[in-house]
């Protein structure tokens, strides 16, 4: 279980995140949504120990600040918004860093082939020999996800659930790959892990999230199931624009929802 209690983050004299309480149980996919600048990424960075915070964060009952880097790396993996690379690594070499950095949990005989399996999962089969820097933004994002998956390949290891922290994992992906990636995240949760993902697409969020946390000006504006949270009032209050949940566009206006995907 991920438990955050009264987490606040200040950068300089400016308070970015204020007194956020947050809990993710194993088996759950929690989405963090909110307008730009509402403190989503800062909060995620506090959860992953990248930024100093006040308050308390624990992973599986252990205080997160007390975890050694390699202990934390064997409990959770983190996908950043974007990753720039200065040396010509191949895709396989990047994904391999996940295998060596964490504990994949697969038998040692299979660990050699794990990068290929992870790449196939994110629909990048055959990309192992390509240079990372020559890929498109969306492909790079999926390579990073494959690396992150390798780090905590088994959602549960030694009886302990493990976690994925994903900062806008689908931001530069086409609709097909948005669905593929969100299905991977949901599958990770269904098999006993926990997922925290910052998302922008409210439809995708409603479709995949078990729990939605809405951030607004550094505070938690609402949290709960998609049905409970996504209301006309909340969207107007938080995003500052009047939208109606569940309203259909005029009859001659096409619209495409991820929910209509045929499995």
């Amino acid at each position, binding site marked *: 279980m991920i438990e955050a209690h009264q987490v606040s983050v200040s950068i300089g004299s400016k308070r970015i995140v204020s007194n956020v309480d947050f809990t993710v149980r194993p088996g759950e996919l929690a989405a963090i949504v909110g307008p730009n600048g509402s403190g989503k990424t800062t909060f995620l960075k506090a959860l992953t120990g990248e930024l100093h915070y006040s308050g308390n964060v624990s992973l599986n009952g252990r205080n997160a600040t007390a975890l*050694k880097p390699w202990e934390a790396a064997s409990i959770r993996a983190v996908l950043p918004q974007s990753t720039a690379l200065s040396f010509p*690594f191949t895709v396989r070499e990047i994904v391999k860093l996940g295998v060596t950095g964490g504990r994949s949990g697969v038998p040692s005989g299979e660990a050699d082939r794990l990068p290929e399996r992870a790449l196939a999962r994110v629909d990048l089969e055959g990309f192992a020999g390509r240079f990372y820097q020559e890929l498109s933004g969306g492909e790079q994002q999926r390579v990073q996800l494959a690396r992150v998956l390798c780090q905590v390949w088994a959602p549960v290891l030694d009886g302990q659930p493990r976690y994925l922290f994903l900062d806008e994992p689908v931001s530069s992906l086409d609709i097909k790959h948005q669905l593929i990636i969100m299905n991977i995240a949901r599958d990770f949760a269904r098999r006993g892990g926990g997922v925290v993902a910052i998302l922008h697409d409210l439809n995708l969020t409603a479709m995949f999230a078990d729990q939605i946390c809405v951030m607004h000006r550094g505070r938690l504006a609402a949290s709960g199931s998609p049905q409970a949270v996504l209301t006309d009032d909340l969207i107007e209050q938080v995003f500052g624009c009047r939208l109606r949940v569940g309203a259909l566009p005029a009859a001659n206006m096409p619209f495409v929802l991820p929910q209509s995907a045929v499995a």
Partner: protein
Amino acid sequence: MVDGTIAGLTGEEEGVRHVSGDRSARALLAIGALAVVLAVTALFSLTWGASDASALGLVSNWLFGATPGNEALSVRDSIIVYDIRLPRIILGVLVGAALAVSGAVMQGLFRNPLADPGLVGVSAGAGLGAVSVIVLGGTFLAPFTALLGSYALPLAAFGGGLVTTIILYNVATRQGRTSIATMLLAGIALGAMAIALTGILVYMADDRQLRDLTFWQLGSLAGATWLKIAAAGPIIVIALATTPFLAKGLNALALGEATASHLGVPVQRLKYVAIVAVSAAIGASVAVSGGIGFIGIVVPHLLRLAIGPDNRYLLPASALLGACLLLLADAVSRTIVAPAELPIGIVTAAVGGPFFLWILLRKRGVVDL
């Protein structure tokens, strides 16, 4: 131009299990080949020089005992080989390896292929430390030199390099992000300050010290003695021996400090150890051989093209290739204007300068300053 995929290249190597995107087999092969080349280069350097002293005769004497017609290895030959050429070769191997590995580690630390101790003022800082001991060793720093003896010079150079690297890192890095433009500019500023202070010391120096300084500043292996090897060798060997432990962390660091930390790397400790190791290796090298530039940038760059940027292979391969290139540069410097000698710093700069420009032209648009 580098191939879009390396599958086509590795596919041709028979007998090597082929995994697309995995260059470790090729890297190991390259390290083996470089080790052989270094051994050959070192033997070749032992026999090549202004004198016709026959090192081959010496070697065969070691191996097979005195053979008929070969007993009378002259005293002159044995002095030339044992006391002049051999220490020079050992020093060349140590310094070449130290410069190349320091470059590779620093590039990993700053996440940029253009970082080089010579370019960003670390060598100048080490030089300042060395010159301080040469000029002030008899007066102001007398207790220091008396206490440390022949270690005073390399340790002072180490201190100078360490201070410069720490200032550089703190100026160029904000919240885990290293600004390369700031790093290069700060390196220029620090280098200029170190050179100015060095200039003041040179101005204060007496005639005997001036001769020492000139000899040293040009950058040369000519003054190699067993004493210098005893002073600088252990520092370089210890510093280089720590770098293989940094390799995995430096690989993860290529993805950024935060991501490296999420991958389980103790980033702060990695940075401290890397900074101290680089400063020690550069300090000791500068102390015994002066300013020899461009090895640290040329060697890792060539190797990344050949075997990829994985530091587990890049660091040992850099040590071997750096040693080879410095021995070759030394051979050129000894013979090109024979019987006189060209300072080796001139040789490496003459070759390295154009090479550096070539990197910039090739990378234009890729390296974002």
